[in-house]
């Protein structure tokens, strides 16, 4: 089989894994929660699950490419979105995070869609999807992400506001400065105020 054919087959295999995970993961999670025992990994590609589930390990692009190959961005988007309601939330969060390593139109669109989908939710795991997505968008879209990130400085969750402030700092965009400055006097939570101040410092140092 040609190299191209091998890759195509590998990719088909991973797609199958994603579908299987969709069906199997909820059952595994429920069983683990009931038993109070260790968390069972979702069924499927062990290497993929491992690199997206590190306690304090953040994989590099090279590591992700080794596992997912050229289909990495597409597969990560699928995992981040969740497939057919069978998503593992921990993997989803880290998939959104990993998309920062794959700048492309497809990635940008997926991250903007995530911000739109989760942007109105004030609590729960949606705030983590949101924070991961907005952080990644800042990295892959730079200045162009400012209009998406700016409004999140008014989000009801202080953690989202703080993440948005830091993400605006990461864009390196001058356009972010007046937005952050305007928000500073309105912000009452020290955590967010300090994040805004740090972002401004980063932007003004550039």
């Amino acid at each position, binding site marked *: 089989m040609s190299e191209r054919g091998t890759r195509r087959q590998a990719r088909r295999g991973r797609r199958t894994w994603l579908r299987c995970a969709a069906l199997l993961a909820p059952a595994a999670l429920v069983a683990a929660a009931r038993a109070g025992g260790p968390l069972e*990994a979702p069924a499927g590609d062990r290497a993929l699950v491992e*690199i997206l589930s590190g*306690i*304090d390990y*953040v994989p590099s692009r090279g590591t992700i490419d080794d596992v997912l190959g050229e289909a990495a961005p597409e597969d990560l988007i699928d995992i981040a979105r969740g497939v057919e309601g069978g998503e593992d939330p921990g993997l989803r*969060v880290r998939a959104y995070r990993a998309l920062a390593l794959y700048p492309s139109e497809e990635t940008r669109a997926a991250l903007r869609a995530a911000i739109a989908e989760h942007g109105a939710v004030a609590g729960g*795991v949606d705030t983590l999807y949101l924070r991961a997505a907005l952080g990644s968008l800042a990295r892959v879209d730079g200045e162009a992400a400012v209009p998406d990130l700016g409004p999140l400085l008014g989000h009801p969750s202080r*953690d989202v506001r703080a*993440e948005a402030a830091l993400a605006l700092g990461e864009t390196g965009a001058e356009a972010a400065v007046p937005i952050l400055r305007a928000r500073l006097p309105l912000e009452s939570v020290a955590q967010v*105020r300090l994040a805004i101040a740090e972002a401004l410092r980063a932007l003004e140092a550039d």
Partner: protein
Amino acid sequence: MRPFNHIAVAVALGAALSPGCTGGGAAVGEECTAAGDCMDGLQCLGGLCTPACELHVECGDGYRCDQGTCALVTSEIGDRCEREIDCGPGQICALDGAGAGGDGPLAGTCQAQPPGLVTGQACEADSDCRSGVCAIGLCTEMCQATADCAPGQTCALIPRLLPDAAPIFSGCLPRQGVAVDHVAVASPRTTLRVPVPSTARSFALVARVDSTDQMVGATRVVDPAGRLLFANPATTDDFYRNPLRYAPGFGISTLLVPNTPDIDLQVGAYEIDVASLLPVGGTGTAVPEVTLFYKLDTAASLDLHFHFLDLTDHPCAAQFDGGRLDATSAGMSPRFQQYVSAIDAMLAPAGLTVGEVTYRDIGGRGDLDAIRREHLGELLALSDQPTGVSVFVVRSVSPVGVQALVGGTPGPPRTPGTAASGIAVGADTLCYRSWDILARITAHALARQMGLYFNRAPDGALDTISDSDDSADNLMFFSEFGGTSLSEGQRDVLRRYPGLR
């Protein structure tokens, strides 16, 4: 040398024992001229009947307990001695290096007792101690058997650091606890000799520099038999090849010996190069501050000190009992207490138990409520408890998806207030995982802070502990989808952490 007041002890014991004494002989506290004047079970000491001795230490300086009777030791200055009680009143058995070339332990000579600290007190030099011997940071005195030592002490083999050798002598050391030795270092790079006594279970070398821009730590470790255990790795492969897995760190690092049961802790002097290092290579400019911690017992109680950042309005506060989690509520929170119990259960197979648990709020640090790796040191420097491990419960850890951060592998035992003194655990994991899973994540981080490495690292590298497998069932598996099992070797290393009590 043992300061002792025979009369006061005799009178005190007499008051306690008199009601039980009957018969024709003299009772405790009554005058006597010989042992025959006293009732059975008593001796005549200093002209008074006193209870028969069992330990030399009961008899005081210059006396030894000989079949229940305190006998005055007579010796001249310069007489050979092998233990403190070979020398008479006002004298010490001073090590003089005699016998350094022989197979047996070093001997000494009786010398006039100088002023100084008593046995067991912390010292920096021989001259600090009345016994004239400071070893592993403690004044010690010579012995032949544990019966020669005070209660709570044991007679151990201790290397004596001489310029070109490290012969062994027998000295009294605490039976329990951790001995702390602050080592004087005068230059950015130095070679230390670390004397390891026979009763040590492990030792940790904590090296610090004031600068966080420079690295610090051991760059070479050789055991008493001359085996190279560690050489500062130039590559990742070198790091994994070292028998002793370790790396210097920015500002602080801790070397734990042994951190694998495949290395025996030997009695003798370890030779350890310590240096500050520039990130670009070469020796730094900062002078390391070095402290040695010797674990002298099998204590296995791990204190946990929880520090709560501001978790108000947390997005997953629904997982907190009453929607609140802080120092006041944690002690009464069933979920939090179950979490602590679960950590305890995960460490139990290693023979460890969670000991004292404390709670503290850290307010007014909005910059640390959600922690990023680059600010971890600032957070951990807020720790203030000397024992166990400090656990900082933060709102979240960045980047999103990171669940815990570890100060060091291992972190510095009994050294609060440093950039490596503890672990951080993100409460946002509770947005998608149970408290039990958070307990496994916390236990994993605690075990790393106590000296264990991944059983299988993300890059596939395996543990130095030969009996730990590479399975996901292991507590040290790097993924959150991991189990709680520990190999016997891993358990052994955990029990050697000097932060236990």
